[in-house]
């Protein structure tokens, strides 16, 4: 009974959020949702399958710009945009990754680095189509005839898509597809012996991850309503990698924890810097970029060195310890709890 009530309370909390809190919280919730979807995708590619990808932000950009263009030029409803953005990002990923799927993982990593820079370059040089350095303003997302013109309204789209993304990821790893991904990460040639075509499955893992990125980008375009190349720099790709590492590679819960953690950290940093501005009297916001770089890099290093399985493992340990003390105390009391 206890477990179901936890899920129900969570559902109620999430559904009531727009009315129960400030606009800033809703904004953060939307951002968390976007980052959860993106991190889930990168975790599939890098965490579960072991293919290092440095282009995730680039694929998010593809999704975001695709939605912007579809929405602005043809008024495509948001749900269709989301799907098409995922497909587009997946295709772009496939094109860039294709030469490397038959090679060792490090070559793919390099290809993704090239992809990241090339995509951003193309967006900045895209002139009238992409808006160059200034980017594009996104028209109001539409569902049916309804205009989702506030974060409160768009939040539900983000919530639904995020839940769906989590569910799909979870399902994949109940099936042979997910098992194949893990086998490729662990000992790829032995996976081949059991019938797993490495090139095909690597491509699959990479393109699924890119699809998620595209969907995340689409959601981002929907609630930010502005897309610029700057939002999708290499630093952001490192952000997503950090989210995977911090939360826990190869773990769905880890993707969620990591994404939320990494989303809140920059907000924390910005907040801390703004507070110190009064104390130290310098333009702390100007150094935000540098501090973000240090923190993201530092998180990756710290977790890989000290806690390679991430926060999800830490949470699991705490949970196990709690269950043990709970059961031992209930034994002492000679009573039964479910």
């Amino acid at each position, binding site marked *: 009974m206890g477990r179901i009530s936890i899920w129900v309370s969570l559902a109620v909390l999430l559904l009531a959020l727009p009315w129960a809190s400030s606009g800033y919280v809703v904004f953060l919730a939307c951002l968390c949702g976007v980052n959860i979807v993106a991190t889930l995708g990168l975790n599939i590619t890098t965490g579960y399958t072991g293919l290092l990808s440095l282009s995730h932000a680039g694929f998010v950009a593809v999704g975001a710009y695709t939605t912007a263009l579809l929405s602005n030029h043809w008024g495509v409803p948001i749900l269709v945009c989301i799907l098409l953005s995922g497909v587009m990002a997946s295709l772009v990923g496939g094109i860039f990754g294709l030469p490397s799927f038959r090679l060792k993982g490090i070559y793919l990593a390099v290809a993704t680095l090239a992809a990241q820079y090339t995509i951003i370059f193309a967006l900045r040089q895209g002139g009238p189509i992409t808006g160059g350095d200034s980017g594009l303003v996104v028209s109001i997302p539409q569902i049916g005839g309804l205009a989702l013109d506030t974060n409160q309204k768009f939040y539900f789209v983000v919530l639904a898509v995020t839940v769906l993304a989590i569910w799909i990821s979870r399902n994949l790893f*109940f099936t042979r597809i997910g*098992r194949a991904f*893990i086998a490729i990460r*662990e000992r790829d040639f032995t996976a*081949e*012996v059991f*019938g*797993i075509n490495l090139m095909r499955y690597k491509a699959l893992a990479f393109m699924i991850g890119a699809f998620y990125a595209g969907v995340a980008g689409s959601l981002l375009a929907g609630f930010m309503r502005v897309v610029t190349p700057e939002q999708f720099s290499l630093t952001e790709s490192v952000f997503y990698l950090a989210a995977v590492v911090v939360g826990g590679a190869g773990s769905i819960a880890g993707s969620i924890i990591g994404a939320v953690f990494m989303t809140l950290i920059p907000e924390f940093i910005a907040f801390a810097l703004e507070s110190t501005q009064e104390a130290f009297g310098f333009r702390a916001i100007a150094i935000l970029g540098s501090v973000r770089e240090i923190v993201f890099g530092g998180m990756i290093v710290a977790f890989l060195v000290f806690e390679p399985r991430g926060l999800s493992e830490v949470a699991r340990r705490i949970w196990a310890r709690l269950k043990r003390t709970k059961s031992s105390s209930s034994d002492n009391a000679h009573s039964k709890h479910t």
Partner: protein
Amino acid sequence: MVSPAVDRLGAQSPSQPLLEVADVTLTFGGLHALSGVSVEFEEGTINAIIGPNGAGKTTLLNVISGFYLPQQGQIRFQGRDILSMPPSARATLGIARTFQNISLYRGMSVLENIKLGAHTTLRTNVLAGGFFSRATRRQEAALTQRIKEEIAPPLRLNEYLDDPVEGLAYGIQKRIELARALALSPKLLLLDEPVAGMNSSETEEMAKLIQRVRAEWDVTIIMIEHDMSLVMGISDRVAVLSLGQTVCEGTPAQVQTHPKAIEAYLGVDDDAVTEVHA
């Protein structure tokens, strides 16, 4: 055809062998790993490939699996040339194997590791998997049941099925590797040192298991082993490899007393007689 330099003892079976290795030569750079190796494996038999270290035994297995492409020679499975098939395609033919170094997958439970062996028997694609279609659910449940009822019990793995593979004892991991291979429902099972690092009671248990697998599941077995009690005890035929070449082939009794076989082990005959502990 078998090269005349190899002594082949015992009667030839008239039916087509399940697996034929014909005149296989494999070089790495200038190094000859295998030179003109020819062996035939009859269906339903337990075969052992023995020889001193560096003889090319695992290399031969890797050629059969498809990891190395020989410069010369042929490999025929059920009469069909498989050299042009990549390793992942050979699994669909019903060829399974275990590895010298345990290669179980961390991050998955014992059950999931075993299920991976049956990858080619499942039909799930990305969409079906992502949305966990009814067909997918049924296939997964059926596979789980099959493993729980048919594969895990003889290997005494049922109590470990939900455990992560990391941290399990070596002997248990070896059995999981075997279970994974069996999940493929193989016609041919390649075992690379199945009892390496096991004590005598574990070896005996594995010996009985291998014989049971052959009998109940109709699987042809090729194993590489150093443990002579196992090799001589349960093999129908034994092939001796030395320095990348077949030295002789025959029943255990024949090979044991064959002068060339003894010569191949000369200088390392301590290893030939004692068990290898990892």
